[in-house]
C-alpha cells in the first residue's frame, strides 16, 4: 500500500504539461465506466486520473452481442462505443465525478469534426473535467476499421479543430493500426495537442470452429490485454523520441513491472485498461509497485526514471 505521506506523494507526482497528477497511473477509457463501478473494491481517489468511458454527442447503443471474445493472454472487444450521450453525461455523471478528489479526464469520440467540436466546447464549461482525451482511433468496425487517426492529414485537422474549441488540456489517443505511428504523433503534436496517449486496441478477430462463425458480431474487433504489450511498448518508445509532448503509455499493463517498462521507454504516465476487468484493484498494486521500485533504485521521482532506457 502506498503510504500517504509527503515523501511518497512527491515521489509519485507527475506533470503532463499543465496537468499535475498525484501519480502516473490512470484508468483507460472503456474499462472503468465513470468511476462508480469500482468503489466497492478500492478508493478511486488514489488514482492519478480516471479516464471515463467515451462520450459522443448522441447516445449510442453499441453493437449487438457477442461483443467480447477471449484470446490468448488477451481479449477482443467490439462494444461499439456504447454511451448515453453528452447531455446525459453532463446531467447524470458529472455530479459524481465532481465529488472525486482525483484528475478526471473525459474521453470524446465522433463521426465528424463538428461532433468533436461540440463535445469539446460543452465539456470545456465543466470544472469537474480536468482534461479531454480525444479518441481519433477507435476502430469504426462497421466501416472496416478506418478512422481519423490512420491518416496524418486527418489527424492534424481534427486536433487543430478541437484545439480551437477548448482551452482544456488536450490528450490525443492514437490508433496502432497505422503504417507509421510516429508520423501521426508528429501531426497531432503540430495540431496543438498537449499530450499523446497510445495505444488504442489492435484490430483482430477470432473464429468459432464448430459453427464456423466469427466470435464477434462485427467480425473484427479491438485486441487488448497482455498480448499487445510488446507492440504498445515499441510504439511508445518510438513516439517518445519523436515528439516533445508528454506521452502516456497504454497497452497490456497488468503489473507495476509493466508500467515501469513504459516509463523507462519514455512514458510520463500510463493507463491501465483490461487489467481492471480481471483485477479491480490492479491500479492500487501498480501504484504501490512503482513507488517501491523508485525507492529501491534511488530515483527521486517518476520523471527521473522516464526515458532512462540504456541503449
Amino acid at each position, binding site marked *: 500500500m502506498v503510504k500517504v505521506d509527503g515523501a511518497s506523494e512527491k515521489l509519485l507526482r507527475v506533470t503532463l504539461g499543465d496537468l499535475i497528477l498525484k501519480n502516473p497511473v490512470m484508468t483507460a477509457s472503456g474499462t472503468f465506466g465513470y468511476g462508480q*463501478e469500482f468503489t466497492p473494491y478500492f478508493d478511486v481517489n488514489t488514482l492519478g486520473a480516471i479516464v471515463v468511458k467515451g462520450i459522443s454527442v448522441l447516445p449510442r447503443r453499441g453493437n*449487438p452481442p457477442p461483443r*467480447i471474445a477471449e484470446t490468448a493472454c488477451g481479449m477482443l472487444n467490439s*462494444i461499439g462505443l456504447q454511451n448515453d450521450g453528452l447531455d446525459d453525461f453532463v446531467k447524470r455523471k458529472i455530479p459524481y465525478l465532481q465529488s472525486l478528489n482525483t484528475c478526471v479526464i473525459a474521453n470524446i469520440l465522433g463521426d465528424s469534426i463538428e461532433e468533436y467540436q461540440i463535445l469539446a466546447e460543452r465539456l470545456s464549461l465543466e470544472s469537474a473535467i480536468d482534461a479531454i482525451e480525444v479518441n481519433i482511433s477507435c476502430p469504426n468496425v462497421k466501416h472496416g476499421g478506418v478512422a481519423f487517426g490512420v491518416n496524418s492529414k486527418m489527424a492534424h485537422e481534427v486536433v487543430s479543430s478541437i484545439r480551437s474549441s477548448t482551452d482544456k488540456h488536450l490528450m490525443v489517443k492514437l490508433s496502432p493500426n497505422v503504417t507509421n505511428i510516429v508520423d501521426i504523433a508528429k501531426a497531432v503534436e503540430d495540431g496543438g495537442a498537449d499530450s499523446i496517449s497510445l495505444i488504442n486496441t489492435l484490430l483482430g478477430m477470432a473464429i468459432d470452429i464448430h459453427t464456423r462463425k466469427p466470435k464477434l458480431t462485427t467480425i473484427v474487433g479491438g485486441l487488448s490485454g*497482455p498480448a499487445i504489450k510488446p507492440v504498445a511498448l515499441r510504439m511508445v518508445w518510438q513516439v517518445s523520441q519523436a515528439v516533445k509532448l508528454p506521452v502516456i503509455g497504454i497497452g497490456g499493463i497488468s503489473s507495476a513491472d509493466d508500467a515501469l517498462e513504459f516509463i523507462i521507454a519514455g512514458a510520463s504516465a500510463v493507463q491501465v485498461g483490461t487489467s481492471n476487468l480481471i483485477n*479491480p484493484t490492479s491500479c492500487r498494486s501498480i501504484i504501490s509497485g512503482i513507488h517501491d521500485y523508485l525507492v529501491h533504485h534511488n530515483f527521486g521521482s517518476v520523471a527521473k526514471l522516464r526515458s532512462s532506457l540504456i541503449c
Partner: protein
Amino acid sequence: MNHSPPNDFRCRVLDNERLTEHIYRLTLESSPIALGCKPGQFVMIRTSSSLDPLLRRPFSIHRVLSDDSFQILYRIVGKGTTNLSRVTRDDILAVIGPLGNFFQLPSARDSNTGICLVAGGMGVAPLLFLAETALRQCPRNPIIVFIGARSEEELVASTSFRSLGLETYEISDDGSCGRQGVVCDLFPLLDLTKQWKFFGCGPTPMLRALASYCSHSHHLCEISLETMMACGLGACLGCVTPRRDDAGYWHVCKDGPVFNLEVLPW
C-alpha cells in the same frame, strides 16, 4: 437480510467434488459471500494464476452451505473450467462476489402462489439456492421442481432437490431417466387450479419454450441468463442482451442475471 456489496476475496477451497466425468461441485470458504448473497447472484472466479486464460469465469451460487461456505456447480467446457477441475482442498482462489441481482420469490403472505422451478442442463445451478431459500421464506407456498438434461448422468443435481423434500420431476433427451423429452414437456404435471410463479434457467431454446408457455397462460416468470462476460462488474459493457422495448440492451451482470420475462424479447 440485505445483500452485501461485492468485494474481491481470496477463498480457500474446501472441496472440489467430481460428480460425473464433466460435472464438479466446488465448495469455497467465505463468510462475506455466504452471508451476503441471495439466490440468483453469481461470482467471478480466476481460473488461472497466470495471464492465460485471462478473464475470470462467472458461476451462479449453487448453495450456501453454512455461514462461511458456499458452492458452485460447474461443467468442464473449456480452458477455465478444466483448470478449475484441478484445484484441491486448501488451494486459494480469487473470487469476486456476490454480483448481480436476485430472484424475487412470492411474498410469504401470498401462499396461494406456487413456486415452479424449471431447470435445463446446467441451468439447475442457481435453482438449488433458490429452492432452499423458498423453503425458508415461503414455507406455505407449494413448490415444484422440473429438471431436464441430455441424459441421466447430467441430472446429477436432482438428488439435492429431493433430499430437501421437494416434489421433483426429471426428463432427459435420451429417456435414460425414465421420461423422454425436454423439460417443458413436464408442464402438464402442473396443477393449473393454482397460480404459479416460474423461475427458469437453462439453454436458450428451453428459455424460449418457457417464455412462450408463460406468455400464453399468463404466468409470472423470472429467468436467469448466462452470457459471455469479461468483468462481471458493469464496467466493460460486454455482456449485453436485447431488451424487449428495443431501447438498447440489458447488461446481464448489472441489470441481471435475473430478468422478468416481460422485459425480454421472447
